[in-house]
């Protein structure tokens, strides 16, 4: 299953919250939307925590190769 992009997930989540707030959904639909909203929130927070913290510097080696090393500021 291809994951949707963060920006898309956020937009969908906003839409679901608005729909639930507008307050005309049936019980079935409310449950469905709520469940989807929770899934989207979970996805967003995963993406927010996702990256690791790393600082590297590129070093040009002989033969035109470029490598990265940790940067000691």
């Amino acid at each position, binding site marked *: 299953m291809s994951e949707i992009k*963060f*920006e898309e997930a*956020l937009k969908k*989540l*906003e839409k*679901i*919250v608005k729909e*639930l*707030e507008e*307050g005309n*959904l*049936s*019980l*079935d639909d*409310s*449950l469905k*939307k*709520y*469940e989807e*909203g*929770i899934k989207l*929130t*979970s996805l*967003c*927070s995963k*993406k*927010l*925590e*996702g*990256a*690791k*913290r*790393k*600082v*590297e*510097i*590129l070093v040009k080696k002989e033969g035109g190769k*470029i490598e*990265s090393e940790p*940067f000691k*500021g």
Partner: protein
Amino acid sequence: MNSLRTLQEEHIFTVSELTRDIRLILENTFPKIWVEGEISNFTRHYSSDHIYFSLKDESSILPCVMFKMKNRNLKFDLKDGLQVVAGGRVSVYDKQGKYQLYVESLEPKGLGALQLAFEQLKQRLAKEGLFDPEHKKPIPVLPAKIGIVTSPTGAAIRDILNILKRRFSNLEVIINPVRVQGEGAAEEIARAIQEFNDFKNAEVLIVTRGGGSLEDLWEFNEEIVARAIYNSKIPVISAVGHEIDWTIADFVSDLRAPTPSAAAELVIGEKEKIISEVNDLLGRLNNAFLNRIEILSKELCSLKESYALRQPMNFIKQRQQELDELIQALGKSGNNFINFNTQRLAGLSGRLEGLNPLSVLSRGYSLSLLLPSKEIVKQAKILKEGDLIETKVAEGNFISEVKEIKNE
């Protein structure tokens, strides 16, 4: 006049002798001077790259030449009409019998050479469309990898990394080290931007250096840097010098930050905004859902009573069962957000049970309907003496006649 006798006594110059003497006089009298005037008759010889022009004022004209060796470091473009101050020496071009100013340095009058070059390049690139707002790309909201083109030993990178460290952010930073001033630095900067584009190892670039003079910042005004930024498929944030410094790079970039620290703030700030946005949405999601369920359960009671009375158990029980199944399913997900909410949902399920009209009845409450309309009696004042009402209790129902209305 006895011309023959006069001629024998005078020294007779050859043309070359006279020309040489004139040249020596001029060279000795004007070995190094400054002349101001307006450029005219400007030409550049393509083969030799020597520049020929005249300096003129209202009544006189002075032929000038600036050889390639001297003119190749000119930062600004020469054209007719430009007011300049030229430094050089006066001599004679024997072969044409004319005196010339051999120009060694040239400055625009009234404006520094660098400033004029800056204005000329800025106009030219603006006309080409390199600064067009439509071409600027949005900065990604959640970049995982940031590429920085800067000096590895400068103040800019220190400032940026300090900000990234102080805030919590989980970001990957890749530095492509370059010189940020001096001849040739522009080429390094342009190449570094190109390399990020070639290897696609960053989602946003920061091109940056600390404060300095116009000369120090000059490499960020070079055309090669402008074009590298314009052609970059990765969005570029420029942060060159102090708040008041604007370089060509700043005009071309997708976003200008007034300082390197501000650039870091721009990248992180977006992320912090997003995190609080998501938290907000989660709060609203929960509240909206729970409110909706409350309203629905109230509606269940007031709107569906008659229906529920006809099919007492099924309707409510079905809905309760669905809710329980959802809670079960969510509870299995192992996700903190969901677990927190299933507790609230379980509480709700209990409340639903309490609102079930039939469980209310089993506690001794009864429901009365005014006959013949079957309107549910919630207030005594809709009744008058003599009305017939049908009353439902937990088991069975009966019809009675109103004898007296009491108001409590």
